[in-house]
């Protein structure tokens, strides 16, 4: 199962939990699984969050594969001026 880590600023939506182990094959499945576990997090998942899969940062990449032994970090989406 993939190891899922949440940035500390997301704990307000997960009751303080920042680590999960989930059987997910891509980012869309990850967001779906997290949204079901933590409904308060759901509005932020697609609009506000980026992921780092094994160190590579992805934004707006719902179909990006997640391997069974991957480490996935969720954090604030990045943009700029």
């Amino acid at each position, binding site marked *: 199962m993939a190891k899922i880590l949440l*940035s*500390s*600023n997301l*704990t*307000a939506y997960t009751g303080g939990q920042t680590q999960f182990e989930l059987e997910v094959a891509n980012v869309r499945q990850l967001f779906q699984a997290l949204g079901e576990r933590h409904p308060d997090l759901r*509005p932020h998942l697609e*609009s*506000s969050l*980026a992921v*780092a899969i094994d*160190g*590579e*940062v*992805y*934004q*707006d*990449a719902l*179909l*990006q594969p997640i391997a069974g032994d991957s480490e996935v*970090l969720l*954090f*604030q*989406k*990045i*943009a*700029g*001026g």
Partner: protein
Amino acid sequence: MSTMIKYEEKDLKVVGTRPLRPDGVDKVTGRARFGADYSLPGQLIGKVLRSPHAHARIKSIDTSKAEALPGVKAVVTRDDFAEMPVEFALSGELTVNFHDVTRNMMAREKVYYDGHPVAAVAATSESIARKALGLIEVEYEVLPHVIDVLEAMKPDAPLLHEEQYTEGVTPRPDKPSNLAKRMVFSRGDVEAGFRQADVIIEREFNTKPVHQGYIEPQACLASYTEDGQADLWTASQGHFVIRSQCAKVLQMEVSKLRVMPTELGGGFGGKNNIYNEPLAIALSRKSHRPVKMVMTREEVFRATGPTSGANVRIKMGCTRDGRITAAHAELNFQAGAFPGSSVAMAAMCTFTRYDLEHARVVANDVTVNRPKVAAYRAPGAPIAVFGVESVIDEMAKKLGIDPIEFRLRNAAREGTQTYYGPKFGPIGYVQTLEQARAHPHYSAPLGPNQGRGVATGFWFNIGSETSSTINVNEDGTVTLMIGTVDVAGGSRAAMAMMVAEELGIDVDKVRPIIGDTSSMGFNFITAGSRGTFASGMACVAATRQAIDKLRQRVAQIREVPVEAVLWKDGHAVPAGGEAGQFAPMSLADVAKVAGRTGGTIAGHAEINAQGAGPGFGTHIVDVEVDKQTGLIKILRYTVVQDVGKAIHPAYVEGQLQGGAVQGIGWALNEEYVYGDDGVLQNPGFLDYRVPVASDVPFIDTVIVEVPNPNHPYGVRGCGEVPIIAPMAAIANAVENAIGIRLCEQPMSPPRVLKAIDDAAGAKA
């Protein structure tokens, strides 16, 4: 599809050279057409009635007298725009909420700031339009207002939004508040880290809102036809995003709105969002005539997004040998009239240059009665970094450690875990520090009342949705269509150079143009230092697709397997070995017969570019402080920055210089000044002073190139990092010159004099 094209080291013939930009002649001869240069037959002029109050409830709007004025063809108010639900979309660094967007472009229940649009008029002349504005009767119930961020956070502050409850805190508050959102980014045990510290410095910093200061005011021209289609010419950083937002608020099908990009006279984050565009379309829809709207400079200041003003508290601790043990920050950012400042980005940039085991940043997004903030070049980062790099400087001085050496002892490197999220891949921060230390500037002698300061900056950089098309013309030249607006930095040249490099042809054989929204796939805005990174990747992908087609076509023409055809130096040549021999064909040779051998050759790419490489920079500045007048003079300035790869070094240098100069203006003079009535008092360049040429020396630049492994040429992006460090670098230089630490921006002569007087008073 999410795309990364990996970096490959190779000999380069075009990338890294300095050809003239394709838009250069048009710009120096005045032929280039900016937003206000477009006109259509029969066009009307649109003007906006704006709120004179900082905060008021709209009781009624009567437009009948204006509508009766001869020459007035249409008037629009809140009644002409649909109510929008809460729905978020990314725009620049800001995730916009369409519920708020529709209220910002045209006030509904309340006006939230001086300059807030209340109605718009289209008339046959500007004078008639202005006269009509004076005939619109608006009845207001004036409400108490709040301008300052700390005042707005008080429990008894005038409340902007009765339905706004602070997000991000548990339990959910039972009272509404101007504090829209709180975020906490943390790593480790900060309190334990402070217990390990031998030196702890804690300081508070305050900054004022500043404007992006683009020379070209917002300008657009809209033409809506009776069959429900519309054309829009507008000066923006992203015409596809403008199309999306206009279509949403006007409830149009996206395909019915075509947006043409004009040349852009600067944006810097301020032209990512809609202002007059939906009003012009609505006025055109109502009047059945084209409508042109050009903001005055006063309107730009009063009603378009500046960056946040802020209150910042920094506390850092370190050991005697200069190792940072803990870092804490509280960032209180003005969001303006609606939530959504850049405070989250600022929070993630606050300490990111350093390898910290214990760090925490509390970020507060606060609504106040000012224009809704917009992105401004590395949104929010200069504000947070002003505080952190000042405290770093103070710690280094207290310990007697050279400020660059102090930073090197704590510098983030490849593998460093950030406190906001991912670990860094290959980065060039250490290289920028080392090259700054080795630069002759760093050891040059200083005179009386002169001082030297150092500060550093970090920006993430981004990729995102990008499309590109190349067409091989019948004579072997190439037309390149890109969809990321050239925000005047010369990105068209950079894209053409990458295409030329891939094809193996001269860059002047590639003509780059910016496509409109109906001619190609979606492109996110030119922001986040993504233009050359993401659009460059799309151009490379499109070119490689065209090269594949060229190889296939030559294989058919020469009757050899495609594996036998290699594309090299602008020619299809035998791949060698047993694959097959044939007479080489140039690009022009193939193009000449393309129409008779299967059709024209083209390549296109529609990607979501991933793998942006973070950028770091180190700045050195020398200042001289006039103790009689308080004037800070910039004597010498050097920018050292890792850009990954400079495709066109001259335009990269221009980015580094321009960013530094904007940062100098932010540091020394720029600020919004409000009266007690909440009305902006300095909406013009006479009273809002941006730097002019005589204010700054030549900005020296050193380009560091640590390739981004996720770009075919190693590009990271370079536009945002250079504005981050100047404020702190100048404050550090002033402290070095006169021994006084300035924690208020701008460091204008009156503030410097006051600080000198206060220091003298304290000594007495």
